[in-house]
Structure formats: structure tokens, C-alpha cells
């Protein structure tokens, strides 16, 4: 290629990237909708393809697969909100009673007596703790109201994602064919291979993640049930397990997010319970309100997931070095927050496939 032409192309690319960067914020909701629709399509594509062979209608297959998934989702969210409401109601009733104030007072004194003197200033007074608990509840209600306020926008996005997913699932193979029309003859076979490899990379990663998340959820539920057997008094066990499984989709940070609801609920349920406060792990390490038991349980679940389940179900599908994983997670988190962290690994996996094909083309251009 003429060097001047090369410079022009690079300049054009830079200008286009800059313009893209400027207009990106205006299109970011649309891009997000498209990314989510594409990811959902990748998750459901195989099931729809499989079902289509039996019901002989793609539309019917899409309706069946999505209908079932949406029903399960609604059932889960509905019963979760219901149980959470009940949990908050019970806790708020507990706060109103005088026994709660006495329990918090006792707790504060006990902690102060257990800690060395110079730590005493750090332990808040019982009045402050009660105020904090009340504020915590008010905050929850305020957050719920704020959520309802922005629910309109959220529902619109969810609806659009659903519509795009349905269209993509029904027309997926035709869309792919139309895309292939733009590939020059020279690159046809290599282009098809790249598309196939990208599809495989994404669907393998997603299916692996879903399997890993399910196993983390099941293991967490089993763990929490065991803790309840020794008197931890943790409610909403199944929901906590599912949240831990979902949080596990975000690597590195997810597992810590998973244990927060369990710890909060055990504190809510056990305030005033003498035996729960003076609980010891293996009769050696003090673990008030079973907090360290919960942390230990989640660490064990994580170890089982990291060492046995994830290598088995995800394996070498992404094949990224742990160092690269950490770097892309930080970059994704900085650019887009938790969503960025969620997409960082599969996006890097796709980039890796594309780079591999580009290197192959540049090395073997004489064959094309």
C-alpha cells in the first residue's frame, strides 16, 4: 500500500474514533440494549435451534424458550420481593420494641468489654446503633422509592431488550447470511470461520458462566442450610444463594457481593440472641452472629468453584492469563462500572479471537 494512503487511512480511523467517542454517550442506551440482546440471543440460540427441529416452527420455539425463562424470572423476582418485604417488616417491628433497645445496649457493652480499652471509642453507643438501624430501614425504603421512580426507564429498556432478543432469535441465521454478503470473496471462508469462532467463544463462555453460577448458588444454599442446622437462623436462604450465584458472574468482586446479604440478614435475625452472639467456630474462634462462619462458608464455596467447577465447565474457553483478567476487569470497571466488569472478560475473549484471525490473515495473505 502507498505510504501516503496508509497515513490517510490511519488519520481517517483516528477521526472516526474521535467522532465515535463524542457521539457514544448519545447512543449508549441503544448500544447497551443491543449488547444485552445479543448476549441473551447467544444464551438461548442453541435451545431455540434445538426446539425448532422438534416443533418445526422457529417462532414457536422462541416463544416457548423465552416464555418459560420470563415466567421463571418473574416468579423468582416476585417471591423474592415478597419475602424481602416480610423480612424488612419483621425487622422493623423488632426495632420498634423496647427489647431491641435493651439487646443493642447489652451488645454494645459486651463488645466494649471484650475489646481493649483504646478500641472502646470506636464502638458506637447503643442509641447510635438503634438510630443507624432505623436509618438503614429508611434508606432501604427511600432506595425502593427511587427505584420505582426510575422503573419506567428500566422497564422500557427491559422491554426493548426483549423485543430485540425475539427479533434476533427468529432472524438470527438470516442476519448472519446478510452480514456474510458484505465479506469480499477473498476473505469469505476466513470470515465465516471468524464469525463461527466468535459465536462459539461467547456462547461457551456464557453457558459456562451460567453453569458455574448455578453451582455456586446450589453450594451456597447447601452451606447456608448447614449453618442453619447449627443455629445460624438465616432466612431467605434460597434467594441469598441465587444472589451469590448471580454475583459470581462478576469475577473477583462477585463472591464478596454474595456474602453481604447473608451477613446482613444474620445480624437482623440474631440481634438480642445471646447464644448467637457468643458463638465460636469449631469452639475456638469467636464468630458473633455466625459472621465468620458465613465468610468461611463462602470462601469454601469459592474454592470449590474456582478449583473444580469453573475449570470443568468453562475450561480453556476464554484462555486468558489471570493477570490479563485482572487488568481488563479494572479497565471495564473504570469505564462502565459493574456492567463493564461483567462484559470485560467475554469482550476480551472476542478481541482475542479477532486478533488471532487478523494475525493469521496478515501472515498468510498469499493464500487468500
Amino acid at each position, binding site marked *: 500500500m502507498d505510504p501516503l494512503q496508509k497515513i490517510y487511512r490511519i488519520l481517517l480511523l483516528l477521526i472516526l474514533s474521535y467522532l465515535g467517542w463524542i457521539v457514544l454517550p448519545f447512543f449508549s442506551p441503544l448500544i447497551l440494549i443491543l449488547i444485552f440482546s445479543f448476549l441473551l440471543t447467544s444464551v438461548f440460540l442453541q435451545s431455540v435451534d434445538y426446539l425448532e427441529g422438534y416443533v418445526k416452527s422457529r417462532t414457536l420455539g422462541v416463544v416457548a424458550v423465552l416464555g418459560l425463562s420470563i415466567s421463571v424470572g418473574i416468579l423468582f423476582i416476585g417471591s423474592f420481593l415478597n419475602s424481602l418485604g416480610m423480612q424488612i417488616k419483621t425487622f422493623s417491628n423488632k426495632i420498634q420494641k423496647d427489647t431491641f433497645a435493651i439487646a443493642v445496649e447489652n451488645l454494645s457493652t459486651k463488645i466494649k468489654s471484650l475489646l481493649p480499652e483504646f478500641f472502646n471509642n470506636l464502638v458506637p453507643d447503643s442509641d447510635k446503633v438503634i438510630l443507624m438501624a432505623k436509618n438503614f430501614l429508611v434508606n432501604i425504603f427511600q432506595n425502593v422509592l427511587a427505584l420505582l421512580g426510575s422503573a419506567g426507564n428500566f422497564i422500557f429498556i427491559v422491554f426493548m431488550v426483549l423485543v430485540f432478543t425475539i427479533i434476533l432469535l427468529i432472524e438470527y*441465521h438470516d442476519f448472519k447470511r446478510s452480514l456474510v454478503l458484505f465479506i469480499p470473496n477473498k476473505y469469505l471462508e476466513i470470515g465465516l470461520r471468524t464469525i463461527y469462532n466468535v459465536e462459539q467463544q461467547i456462547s461457551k463462555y456464557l453457558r459456562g458462566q451460567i453453569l458455574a453460577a448455578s453451582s455456586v448458588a446450589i453450594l451456597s444454599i447447601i452451606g447456608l442450610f448447614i449453618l442453619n442446622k447449627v443455629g445460624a437462623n438465616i432466612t431467605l436462604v434460597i434467594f441469598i444463594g441465587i444472589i451469590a450465584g448471580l454475583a459470581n458472574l462478576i469475577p473477583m468482586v462477585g463472591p464478596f457481593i454474595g456474602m453481604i446479604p447473608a451477613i446482613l440478614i444474620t445480624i437482623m435475625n440474631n440481634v438480642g440472641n445471646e447464644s448467637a452472639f457468643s458463638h465460636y467456630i469449631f469452639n475456638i474462634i469467636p464468630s458473633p452472629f455466625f459472621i465468620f462462619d458465613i465468610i468461611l462458608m463462602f470462601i469454601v464455596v469459592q474454592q470449590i468453584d474456582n478449583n473444580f467447577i469453573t475449570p470443568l465447565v468453562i475450561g480453556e474457553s476464554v484462555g486468558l492469563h489471570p493477570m490479563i483478567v485482572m487488568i481488563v476487569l479494572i479497565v471495564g470497571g473504570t469505564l462502565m462500572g459493574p456492567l463493564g466488569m461483567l462484559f470485560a472478560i467475554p469482550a476480551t475473549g472476542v478481541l482475542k479471537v479477532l486478533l488471532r484471525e487478523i494475525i493469521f490473515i496478515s501472515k498468510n495473505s*498469499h*493464500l487468500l
Partner: protein
Amino acid sequence: MEAIYKNFFREQNNIDPILTTLERIPIFENLLKKELKNIAQLTHEREYKSNEYVFKKHAPAEGMYVILHGEIEIKDPKSGNIFANLHSGDFFGELALLDEEPRSASAICNVPSRLIGFFRTDLLTLINRYPELGNKILLNLSRVLGERLRETNKNIIKSK
């Protein structure tokens, strides 16, 4: 107006050239019209100029081609040996549907040609979407390759 007329009053028994070509290919033999339509939906129709390569020797192989119109020469680029001259309705490169070995010869268009490409990824999609149809194609493909092997054996015996 013509587009609207064609859309609303299109003939029901429109003969699709891709379907008629595909049903004559041994790999798609004994398939129902509906099954052929399912295959046609996955294939890629491409136009090639005269002297344009369809693929070069040693290039990564992803699938087979069926000639709709035109003429294709299969040759060894180094020695210039021509292995076959193929015309409308012929097919080539079918081995690539099964293995991932590079192309053993080059395919070049002698005249402007129109080809249908059917690739390994399409076959895998077909096996996923319509397992029964996928099995039929695989069986036909094995039959074609078996016949080729038998012919090669005969040629070897003859040359001895």
C-alpha cells in the same frame, strides 16, 4: 408498481434456481423440498469474476461450492496440472465439510461465475437445528466419499 405487483401477485410455483441445482447434487440427494429449502436458507450465493480464485492451494478450507453458472478449473498452481474443469451443476471442495485440512488444489474461475457456498459452520448449524436432516446429509456425504475412494482404488489397480 412492479415491485408491489410482484410482491402481491407473485407466482406460487416460482422455480428457485438454487433449489433445482441443489437437488441434483448427490450430497443433497433424496431430500424433501422443505429440507432443501432449509439448506438453501443457510447457503451463500456468490459472484466471481473471470480469473478470480475461489480458493488457493494450502488455504484454510471451510466448505464446498456448487456451480450455478460458469466454469471452474481445479489445478495445481505450481505444476500447472489441471485436475478438473467443472461446469454448471458440478460441485467441489466437499471434503472440507468434514476435515480441517488446507485445500489440496486451487480453484479458479475461467469465466464470470455464480457459486453457492455451503460451509462446515452451516452443516454444524443444520445438525443443531434439524438433526434428522443433518444425518441425511452426512450419510450422503459418506456415500459420495466412499464412491470416490472406490474409484481411486480402481485407478490405482489399473495403473499397476
